């Protein structure tokens, strides 16, 4: 797992600031769009999702925004903490094939103290 994300775009954020991670998706027919967090040496972990008929959804310290016009997805993390340091992936899925996720290119989030 240590080799994941070595050549990924990196976002560096100071602790306490807000983070915005962006993603472009490909399939306008996808039912759900999802954000995953992958820490070093671990598999992806579900963070939050949004249905295709929604524009915004909020969770605990996280907000996902969906712009279907330009096929763009973003993840906002409020008050970023050191534990948020990881690689973040967006994914899309059709609910009929729930295990078949299509992942986008990841972004490495580095939280500086």
């Amino acid at each position, binding site marked *: *797992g*240590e*080799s*994941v*994300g*070595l*050549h*990924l775009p990196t976002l560096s954020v100071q602790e306490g600031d807000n983070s915005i991670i962006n993603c472009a998706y490909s399939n306008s027919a996808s039912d*759900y769009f*999802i954000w995953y967090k992958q820490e070093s*040496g*671990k*598999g*992806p*972990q*579900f963070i939050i*999702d949004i249905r295709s008929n929604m524009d915004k959804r909020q969770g605990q310290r996280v907000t996902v925004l969906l712009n279907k016009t330009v096929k763009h997805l973003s993840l906002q993390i409020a008050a970023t903490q050191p534990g948020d340091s990881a690689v973040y*992936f967006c*994914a899309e*899925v059709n*609910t009929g*094939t*729930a*295990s*078949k*996720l*299509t*992942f*986008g*290119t*990841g972004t490495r989030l580095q939280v500086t103290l």
Partner: protein
Amino acid sequence: DAGVTQSPTHLIKTRGQQVTLRCSPKSGHDTVSWYQQALGQGPQFIFQYYEEEERQRGNFPDRFSGHQFPNYSSELNVNALLLGDSALYLCASSAYGGRYEKLFFGSGTQLSVL
């Protein structure tokens, strides 16, 4: 409660060899999916197993095959290894028909092909 466990954690093979990776799903899960994650990329879906049968398959050649056992554990086999097969192989388990947020990933097997 153990989550998804994969073995081995790391593996080194040479071109042309064959490899078998193993996965035990999370307790209560009956469906196993395999993903390949190349360096710097997101995971790519290989296939899904349920009731010991391959149910869905991604865009991978026949060199990639799998098996699911009656206890729901699974194996991923790759024949005639190529350098491009070097990647992190992730196993994910779920309940069949369950939603994707109930998909639990293991920590993966790092395969290096020399």
